């Protein structure tokens, strides 16, 4: 085991100080050190986006960030978005629109979608599709994911071809 360095993280409003290997990925710090297993890993190459979290308010792929790079940062994970009975509008919309099947890509999708809506509160269907380009889903064909994001932004879910 190589030497470790201290890292301070504010995750979902809670302060944590961790001793980590410099090479530890943020996603593994969240999952293995803090037990926040809602953030997933689906590839080795930053293509799938299952690991998307918010770092200082911006959607990032936490498999592409070292924990040490996040030192002092505020991190929001899916667990910080809402819980059963107190759901975030995007969580509610994914549920209502059947925007998930196996659920593995879903936390990353929701975090990426929140990133889109933060910058563009009323995106068009095409803007949503391009905004989600960095997040892969194998179950839904994206159809209901796009509808969910439209729904969460208070727009009609009538999608056009």
């Amino acid at each position, binding site marked *: *085991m190589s030497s470790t360095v201290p890292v301070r993280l504010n995750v979902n409003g809670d302060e944590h100080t961790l001793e980590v*290997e410099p090479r*530890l990925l943020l996603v593994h710090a969240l999952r*293995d050190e803090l037990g926040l*297993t*809602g953030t*997933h*890993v*689906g*590839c*080795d*190459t930053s*293509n*799938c986006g299952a690991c998307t979290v918010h770092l200082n308010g911006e959607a990032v792929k936490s498999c592409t960030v070292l924990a040490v790079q996040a030192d002092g940062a505020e991190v929001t994970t*899916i*667990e910080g978005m*809402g*819980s*059963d009975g107190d*759901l975030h509008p995007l*969580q509610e919309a*994914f*549920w*209502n*629109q*059947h925007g*998930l*099947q*196996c*659920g*593995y*890509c*879903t936390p990353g999708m*929701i975090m990426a979608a929140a990133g889109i809506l933060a910058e563009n509160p009323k995106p068009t*269907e095409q803007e*949503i*599709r*391009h905004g*989600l*380009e*960095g*997040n*892969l*889903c*194998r*179950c*839904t*064909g*994206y*159809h*209901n*994911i*796009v*509808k969910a994001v439209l*729904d969460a932004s208070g727009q*009609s*879910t009538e*999608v*056009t*071809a």
Partner: protein
Amino acid sequence: MSVTDTTPPASHVGRALRRKEDPRLITGRASYVDDINLSGQVWAAWVRSPEAHAKIVSIDTSAAQARDGVLAVYTHADLGMEAGLPMAWVPPGIEVNTPDHWVLAKDEVKHVGDPVALVIGDDRYGVADAVEDVVVEYDPLPVVTDPEKALEPGSPLVHEQFGTNKVCEWSLGGGDLEAGFAEADVIIERRVVNHRMAGAAIEPRGVLAEYRADRLTVWSSTQVPHFLRLFLSGLLGISEELVRVIAPEVGGGFGSKLQIYAEEIGCAWASRKLGRPVKWIEARSEGMMVTHHGRDQIDTVRVGAKRDGTITAWHSKILADIGAYQMLLTPMIPPLSAFVMCGVYKTPAVQTDVVNVMTNKFATDAIRGAGRPEATHMIEVTMDQLASELGIDPLELRRRNFIPPFSAGHETPLGIVYDSGNYAAALDKLLEHIDPAQVSREAEELRERGIYRGIGFSTYTEICGNAPSRIVGPSGFGLQGGGWESATVRVHASGSATLYTGTSPHGQGHETGFAQIVADRLGLDPAQVDVIHGDTQTGPFGLDTYGSRSLAVGGEAAARTANKVADKAKAIVAHQLEADAADIELRDGKFSVRGSPDRGMTLAEVAGAAYVPENLPEGMEPGLDEQTFYDPENFVFPFGAHACVVDVDAETGKVDVVRYVAVDDCGPAINPMLIDGQVHGGIAHALGQALYERIHYDESGQLVTGTFVDYALPTAAELPSFETDRTETPSTVNSLGVKGVGEAGTIAASPAATNAVIDALRPLGVKFINMPLTPMRVWEAINEAKGGAA
């Protein structure tokens, strides 16, 4: 606006109820394998061959073993296993050359990624380091990756001992093929390539194995926990009742997790050896190498027809490149095409000849559709080619050959009996949504801007609901076994219920759909019915989830079991209220006396009476808990009609799917929202294959598409929103009338897309093109048609 339905129901079945699964999934509270950790847990990592074919000269594990935190490094001899990975389903009546497939390679490696050593250590990152320290000396052997060359004399042999790369030959036919071709006015032949692809579930595979106090528990990201338990028991010599397999939350499968993998056996073995829980989580780059692939066929399709379009004979030859080893169902997947090679047509004579061949690639096996996408692709692409040859509109050609509507069985020349179908009605419904003439007008306008718009169709049927033992088992078709399904319904003392199903979902929504079925039969709300699956210790033996079988077999088992519970409830109510059991009906959530709705008992009251048995009918056992093993009489045959509209940029060869319309018939809907979701995902899977995805090995057997950088899954930006509709033709096979829908989209969509691209390119002189329709391939086809060099 919500797609979900919140109005109070007369029946829960048929409603678009939002899913019971979702609250844990949308809040990050679900437990996939990698979310589970045990005290004392250690990590596994695999040393994998970089060579496609080589002798293992030596393996030096000393440097890895010397690393801090490494507990052990194992090679083939250490495992001491008497048998390798199982192959359990072969075509009957023929010789099959099946090599041993060891958990760790013995003497030689046969494909890139073949595992050579297993490293166990106490840290996730540390074992990856240690893998790099295992020094393996290889002596490379000649490699073959082309299935046609693999059959030529003098080809390198993947497994020397057989003297050939041919695994087996198998045929299925019916009707007089020779007479059919003799009668034909026109005969066309096409070489249809269905390239290798991946399941590519977004959750990688993973295993956590714990051997403790003579019991083995394995958590695996699998579609088949029951099969896995059986094979773990056999391969490790642990009595079956002491083995428990749990498929926790499973992040997609698409057939790729319908398998018994080396990593599952190896981790369980190491856990017993070390007395520690052992975890392995697949890296995506491993997954692309050693999670089984699908398709990979070169098909030669020869069709005879009369001048008016009537098909007289259909002969398909399938050359299937199944890779270096045969896994659970490998040799039987290409033959599955043969059973539906009549498609939706009155084809009087049909024959399918299958040759399975070995190459230095990883094994193929079932990937979403498993044989039926290949069949439909051959049929529907060739139908368009035939239409073009005869100068008949492709839809008119289809209509002239459709099997007329039937509701009580249609026997094809193959002896397969389709349950019910109305193919013209599905096509009619499709044309309510899309007007081909309008698309043609649009195409003319767009052409002036260098954009070539085309429309393609596919009208399909498929076979699912695996599998009636009567038909496929030893006394029927001759396979090793059929496929019943189990269900247990347990009503609790306070009146809620648990359904244990032997199916094992991984995203489909069984917890919701099956709860709707049970709730209706017991006067409950679906929220009061918990559906338990994927744990061999909690329910009866089951046969898991694949082949669009869960609803048609497992859902029917659930319905029958709930009916048994309802019958017992009625007997108890009749006894307690001094009425005739035949007069008890389920009404407004109560078992009440017909005509006297105030005289009745809720299920909670019935359960109270059943568990405090002071006033039960004479001889009745206490309790309210029933079980069913349901073995279907026949398969079910969903069908439908799909249309795809594409725009092709003639300068770049880039294809854009601009519309996709699907009409599917899977019988009456249990939950229409779930059906739409399955269809959307199925279409996307096939469009991915048709346009972007390809597992590609170079001539030296190196995997070129080894990550998601190179293996191009479609993103949201590449796909359109889909337009879906349904017709509902009940199956006669089960009481729910249902057919499967999990694979339908994938089965229908690749030929619709391919036909659309060919239609678009026809003005440029392109008559035929094979998948994947990448910009490069389309551009080459356009240039070749122009007479230019590609």
